[in-house]
């Protein structure tokens, strides 16, 4: 029923509203392992940006270090990309967004890059509400250094070598909610329909959008005893709701029983539709979001969906009250105060 009621990523048109083809959103050839969840996410990103008709030249891609952080080279080659140092993508992304507020930023990080070395920068970026789609491709292991546990690995999960993780995992969604993020979602690389709609909603969101995506590592964390593998994730995925997305230029053409679907109007006029599945979940309720996340951990569920959504929160760029034109392209006459201004300053110092 859900699919027929809600507008979901269904048929893909041959050209988008800019007259671009899906191919125009493609990237370089991936060098990741066959079947890597990260590659699935890259494809979902391509599809979301294509279908949302975002000009790739307007997009900027950021990443840190790790398998996940390689992926910006594998989608949207027509967008500028910056592969920063380990765990420090938030800082460079912040700087770039300050320099040019017309850019649409997407950052791709991993659980090592975000939850360990980059945790401080991640938290401060959330706190500032920098407008950026921040994707954590979460597989619970350090892939590029051959399979060490990360800080999101579940307690009791087992490495291929038999080592058991005995530390509790960090829940980056809960952390983002706690820090006041206006858009927090969890997806699963193996569920493209949900992911594409989450990504579209994130594109429409003006502010930081944190998307923690369970993205199985086929080489180091997809075995018996792993809690981030395909099999385990499929079996344990628990949908919070079904997500539909209707861009501003389309009519909402669905019928729904009152109370069955929650509508959230985004900053750009588009609408996010959340069809409740299990309970009356209010995604703008911080306490409910946190308690549901904790319950899921207790119950061994991999809860997915839009955990928290409050589009009205002011972004950092709004708070800075910046001029319309990007700071990067302001002409000298605007950024150099007058001769009289300097004379005034000098007089005050005499």
């Amino acid at each position, binding site marked *: 029923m859900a699919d027929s009621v809600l507008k979901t990523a269904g048929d893909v048109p041959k050209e988008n509203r800019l007259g671009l083809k899906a191919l125009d959103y493609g990237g370089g050839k991936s060098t990741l392992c066959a079947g890597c969840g990260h590659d699935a996410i890259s494809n979902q990103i391509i599809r979301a940006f294509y279908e949302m008709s975002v000009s790739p030249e307007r997009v900027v891609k950021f990443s840190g270090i790790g398998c996940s952080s390689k992926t910006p080279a594998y989608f949207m080659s027509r967008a500028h990309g910056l592969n920063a140092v380990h765990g420090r993508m938030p800082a460079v992304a912040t*700087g*770039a*967004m*300050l*320099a040019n507020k017309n850019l649409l930023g997407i950052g791709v990080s991993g659980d090592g890059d975000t939850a360990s070395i980059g945790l401080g920068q991640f938290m401060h970026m959330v706190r500032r509400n920098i407008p950026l789609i921040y994707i954590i491709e979460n597989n619970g292991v350090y892939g590029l250094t051959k399979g060490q546990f990360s800080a999101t690995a579940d307690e009791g999960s087992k490495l291929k070598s038999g080592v058991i993780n005995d530390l509790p995992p960090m829940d980056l969604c809960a952390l983002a909610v706690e820090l006041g993020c206006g858009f927090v979602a969890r997806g699963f690389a193996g569920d493209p329909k949900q992911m594409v709609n989450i990504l579209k909603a994130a594109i429409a969101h003006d502010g930081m959008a944190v998307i923690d995506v369970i993205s199985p590592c086929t080489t180091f964390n997809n075995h018996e005893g792993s809690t981030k593998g395909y099999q385990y994730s499929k079996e344990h995925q628990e949908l919070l709701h079904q997500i539909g997305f209707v861009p501003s230029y389309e009519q909402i053409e669905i019928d729904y029983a009152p109370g069955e679907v929650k509508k959230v109007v985004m900053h750009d006029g588009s609408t996010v539709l959340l069809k409740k599945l299990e309970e009356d979940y209010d995604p703008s309720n911080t306490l409910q979001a946190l308690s549901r996340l904790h319950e899921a951990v207790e119950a061994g569920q991999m809860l997915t969906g839009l955990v928290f959504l409050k589009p009205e929160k002011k972004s950092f760029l709004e708070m800075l009250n910046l001029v319309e034109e990007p700071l990067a392209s302001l002409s000298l006459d605007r*950024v150099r105060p007058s001769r009289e201004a300097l004379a005034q300053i000098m007089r005050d110092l*005499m």
Partner: protein
Amino acid sequence: MWIVVESSARTRQTSAGFKSKYNFRHQSTVKETSVSDSSVATAVLEPEGAAKGSPSVNDLTIHVATVNGSGSQSSNSVLMRSIFQMGIPVSGKNMFPSNIAGLPTWFTIRANKDGWIARKKEVDLLVCMNVATAREDVEALETGSFCIYDAPLNCKSIRNDVIFFEVPFSKLANELSDDSRLRKLLTNMIYVGVVADLLGIERDEMIVALEKQFKGKKKAVELNVKAIDKGLEFSRENLGKQELFRLERMNKTAGKIIIDGNAAAAIGAMFAGVTVVTWYPITPSSSLCESLIDYLKQYRIEEDGKANFAVVQAEDEIAAVGMVLGAGWAGARSMTSTSGPGISLMSEFAGLAYFAEIPGVVWDIQRVGPSTGLPTRTSQGDILQVFSLSHGDTQHLALFPGSVEECYEFAAEALDLAEMFQAPVFVLSDLDLGMNNWMSDPFKYPEKEIRRGKVLTAERLQELEGKWGRYLDVDGDAIPYRTLPGTDHPAASYFTRGSGHDAYARYSERPEDYKDTIDRLARKYDTARKFVPKPVIDRHEAARIGFIAYGTTDFPLQESRSQLKREKNIETSYFRLRALPFTSELKAFIADHDRVYIVEQNRDGQMGDLIRLEVGEDQRKIRKILHYTGLPCDARFITNAVLTLEEEAP
């Protein structure tokens, strides 16, 4: 051979080893090894100025010892400003603890008719207000100097070869106010009155200075005038006259400004069109960005109330520099300011900026390291660290402002060079320059266009039919072209990475690609030699001795040269270095002299080592004079060191 000489030139030792990153033979080095200057008597070769007995006019050093957080800063500013307004060249140095309130602090004002405004070690007048340091401060005085002290300290019992003036400050303050907190502040203003009476500072000028200090707050001004008058009156009626020093009106400061280097840098950056500023608080650099924020709010808000700048207080220095680079990459003119510990943290990003060729400016207001070091004392100890900041082969552009005026100018120069060379640019100031007050000519309005480097626009890409390579050396100067994110052309984008890449910004681990890139970066650094600020050279045909210095060492060095000429008739040449990479003039200067003294404020002679590497054979001519107590270098130290080394090894 190398020599270690204490500042007093009393003890000498010879050592065979040299513990530095670089090992050279035939080194001649003079180092100041005393922990505290004030505890070491100084061998003055010849007394300066008039002989004691007849007043010395407009040439003295006032040393005020108080407690941190007691409000003495305002009093000292008024004192300094009044002297400045009387037309007498003056400088003020705050020697403060890393503490908010309660620890000893000293403020030194030097007035000098000839315009020597470096630190002078010998104190002529001590204002002794702090019980914790009274004995030490009085004992450090030279015979024949004089001391105003708070009565309960009973300083006159400490020694009898100093002229003492006892003032019952608490009693006088009690007569002014019932408020105990206020009385503490007024006590400090009372000493201003006492000093003014004893030295001849004009009352009218003090009132002007007070109005400036309290920004026209009438009540505060009135109360403080009363305090100054109290001091003047007490002194006149009770202390009698002193015949040692006088301050008299002259006309050497007309049209000059007083400013600290950090504020000067802030003004420079604002007029150079900085648009993204990030920072993390750290002494002694915080006031740079704080001043900048104040100025930007005043002068860079447009008519519609919108800001044409962005400032972020980052979570740490790593984030601060990361934001600068993100902004620089996206086309903004961006900067941050920090000090040594921040530079250490920025190391990894510095490597990214160098290798991926991203512009950004980092001010380093140097303090004493390593580690936390002496956070409120000055140093030139970050030279080698900044030069090669990051792992791997790196060479960074660095500028060394030697005055507040150059802080202003280099703020613009650094932003231009960063964009021209698509590289991080470090500006190395220090605590002495950054936080202390300096006299200067007013800054000139920038007439030059800003230089934004090689950027391909969408139109240009159209002409090139989209054919370009991000790291291609098209012009033979090793500086490639870049595009900015958001450029509306399908071929504009490229992928920026700190990993290996080829000329088209493609990931590469091919040996040829790596070597091509890293060699081109070295060539790019060579290109910069022609564009960085040239040294300021004062060449004397007859001179066999040359000096090389940079930054704040300029002030004592200039004075030392004058001492050497006046007292020993030694003619010297002087090369004031202003940038890395070195320019072509360096080798010629060393070749032209028999002995070259490199004077700097660190233990290892860091710049000296870089110069040795640069000049090859001529390195045998190089001798190091090193001052590193945390206090600014003074002229007499340099003069004594040169004379010692000249005597030992002519």
